[in-house]
């Protein structure tokens, strides 16, 4: 699964280079085999990076963390079923995209209609996450039976919380894709309802960013303190953070639809408030992870207010990639808060600012973290030593420099009205200020491509030529300074059932008023295939 994840990332990064250079008006897309146009490449970029790469990595990585934390194997046939579902889903979607029958981008808003295999492929990719979720729950249930009254090990708790959140969050996209769009693309339903499908998309489309992010958080909480030689401070606070993500990730989707007609401003304001709420656990994370790093830095002889930071092990590729991921995520978080800001959003909605923002979140905080994880995970899985440690370190620095330069370009262009998802180099309109923005975007994208290339060189080198070694016998994860309480209110944190019920109530508060007003919907749109 991890290999599938990085295979998808490779395809995505190659396409990403084409998109970044579009903004600096350099056309390399014409040299890509089988690519008809920019929008086809952009669809591939979005699907393989944001869906295949992230889903495959989460499925593999969190199955491993859960199984290790519970000290019991997960169901083997279910794991193979996950892998088979993902491969099949990927092939179906790849067929549709590769033959140019699905250039509708990864948001696939109707009434633009893709080939049915695209929707079916995406649905199967979501099913693979459900199968993984079921596997984690079965593992947890078995463990509970054998360990009555014992607190769930923290690493299993955070992994299961991630999948519990996504299980509820993916309902929207499942209803839209399986219930509406797939039958529509097969000709069984004549019309689509663009606003309803868009709303269902964003019901899943915001929490999906946490499904991308939380596996990285699992690593930041559980593994980064270990790499840094520190300890995670509070078991209880970590559990609270993941419970908050479970509760607040989903009822926030309208902040992607502030500029949509047909949704009342009152509901948009409620979602804005809840979105600010879900920012809180990320602030707590900044505190907890920094504190764990500080413990590590001081143990290595760091003193004073900031000196401990420089005493960290800057020679460990797994740690450095994730430290840099946190750095870009600070900027990603701040720009995200601006996006979520009710009316401030009007200044930047659908401009190049948005990809500027999310390349500092999913495009680096998540991607760099997953690369950092790979730097210990691949040696662990293959029992080979990492080849090219220097290059591994360098790749993270180049990638980070690239993402910062690119984001600077996209963000400044966006503030000047440069639209996202647009073949700028062939647009009949332009503004003088977009020139510098476009150059920076192209330059940054090229650096990211090079950093990604160095990463893959290390990865392939390790798998093929790495020196056989006993290697790490266990995965690196931290103890907590304050262990879990065995009595008192904290024990209730482990009752997922309650949190899931509370989450469902919040979802109903956030979406029921809209659905009551809006249903049975406005199914009047005929399909279009403008590609």
């Amino acid at each position, binding site marked *: 699964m991890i290999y599938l994840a990085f295979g998808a990332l490779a395809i995505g990064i190659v396409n990403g280079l084409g998109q970044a250079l579009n903004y600096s008006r350099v056309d390399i897309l014409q040299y890509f085999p089988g690519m008809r146009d920019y929008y086809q490449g952009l669809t591939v970029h979005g699907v393989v990076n944001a869906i295949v790469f992230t889903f495959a990595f989460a499925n593999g990585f969190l199955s491993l963390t859960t199984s290790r934390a519970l000290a019991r194997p997960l169901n083997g046939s279910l794991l193979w079923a996950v892998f088979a579902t993902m491969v099949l889903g990927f092939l179906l979607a790849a067929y549709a995209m590769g033959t140019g029958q699905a250039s509708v981008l990864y*948001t696939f808003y109707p009434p633009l209609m893709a080939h049915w295999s695209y929707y079916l492929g995406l649905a199967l990719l979501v099913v693979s996450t459900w199968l993984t979720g079921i596997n984690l729950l079965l593992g947890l249930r078995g463990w509970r039976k054998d360990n009555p009254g014992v607190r769930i090990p923290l690493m299993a708790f955070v992994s299961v919380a991630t999948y519990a959140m996504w299980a509820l969050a993916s309902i929207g996209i499942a209803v839209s894709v399986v219930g509406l769009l797939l039958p529509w693309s097969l000709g069984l339903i004549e019309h689509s309802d*663009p606003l309803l499908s868009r709303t269902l998309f964003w019901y899943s489309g915001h929490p999906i960013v946490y499904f991308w992010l939380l596996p990285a958080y699992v690593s930041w909480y559980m593994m980064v303190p270990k790499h840094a030689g520190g300890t995670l401070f509070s078991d209880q606070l970590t559990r609270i953070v993941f419970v908050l993500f479970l509760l607040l990730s989903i009822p926030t989707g309208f902040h992607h639809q502030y500029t949509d*007609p047909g949704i009342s401003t009152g509901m948009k304001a409620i979602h804005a408030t809840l979105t*600010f709420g879900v920012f809180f656990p990320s602030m707590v994370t900044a505190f907890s992870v920094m504190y764990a790093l500080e413990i590590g830095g001081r143990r290595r002889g760091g003193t004073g207010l900031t000196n401990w930071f420089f005493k960290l092990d800057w020679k460990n590729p797994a740690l450095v990639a994730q430290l840099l991921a946190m750095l870009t995520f600070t900027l990603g978080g701040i720009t995200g808060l601006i996006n979520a800001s009710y009316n401030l959003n*009007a200044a930047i909605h659908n401009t190049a600012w948005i990809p500027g923002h999310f390349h500092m979140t999913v495009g680096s905080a998540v991607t760099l973290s997953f690369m950092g994880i790979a730097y210990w995970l691949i040696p662990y899985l293959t029992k080979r030593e990492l080849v090219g440690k220097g290059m591994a370190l360098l790749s993270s620095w180049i990638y980070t420099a690239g993402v910062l330069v690119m984001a600077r370009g996209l963000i400044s262009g966006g503030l000047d009205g440069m639209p996202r998802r647009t073949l700028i180099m062939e647009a009949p309109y332009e503004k003088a200020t977009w020139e510098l923005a476009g150059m920076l975007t192209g330059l940054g994208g090229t650096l990211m491509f090079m950093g990604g290339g160095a990463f893959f060189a290390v990865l392939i080198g390790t798998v093929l030529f790495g020196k056989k070694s006993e290697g790490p016998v266990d995965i690196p994860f931290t103890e907590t300074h304050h262990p879990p309480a065995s009595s008192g209110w904290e024990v209730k944190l482990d009752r997922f059932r309650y949190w899931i019920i509370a989450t469902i109530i919040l979802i109903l508060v956030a979406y029921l008023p809209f659905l009551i007003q809006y249903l049975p919907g406005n199914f009047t749109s005929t399909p*279009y295939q403008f590609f």
Partner: protein
Amino acid sequence: MTTEKIEKVFLSLSAGMLLVFLVALFYSAFAMGIHLPDREGEIHPAEVRSTPPFDEPGVREVGPNQYEVVMIGSAWSFTPREVRVPAGAEVTFISTTTDVIHGVHVEGTRVNFMLIPGQISKITSTFREPGEHLIICHEFCGAGHHLMYGVLIVE
């Protein structure tokens, strides 16, 4: 200071900062009148061009210093393509699409809204400075998406 105390201070500061931001946002929205698109009614996408007010797209004066811009988006152009309004006037955009989802961003201003088939979009703004702004379709709407634009001229 014990660590638990640092923890509490940090958490309260985080929560406090977010609350201040929220208050500022809603003050600007409700006291200063910066509004988002609301529910304005539905329309059949196939009948847009024969349904008032979209049967006569264009700019019209509807009151003292008040103007309405009736605009249709369809792949891949805006009708009308050029919009002229006086500086300082209250301008209301009433808009929809005949086919797929489009976007309308009058760059350099906060006029930024989506056109969704079946829905009517409405947003009011005032342009204080004379000048020219691009009207950009900023939602992917097919192979010719980048060709779709217009111009707003504030006189």
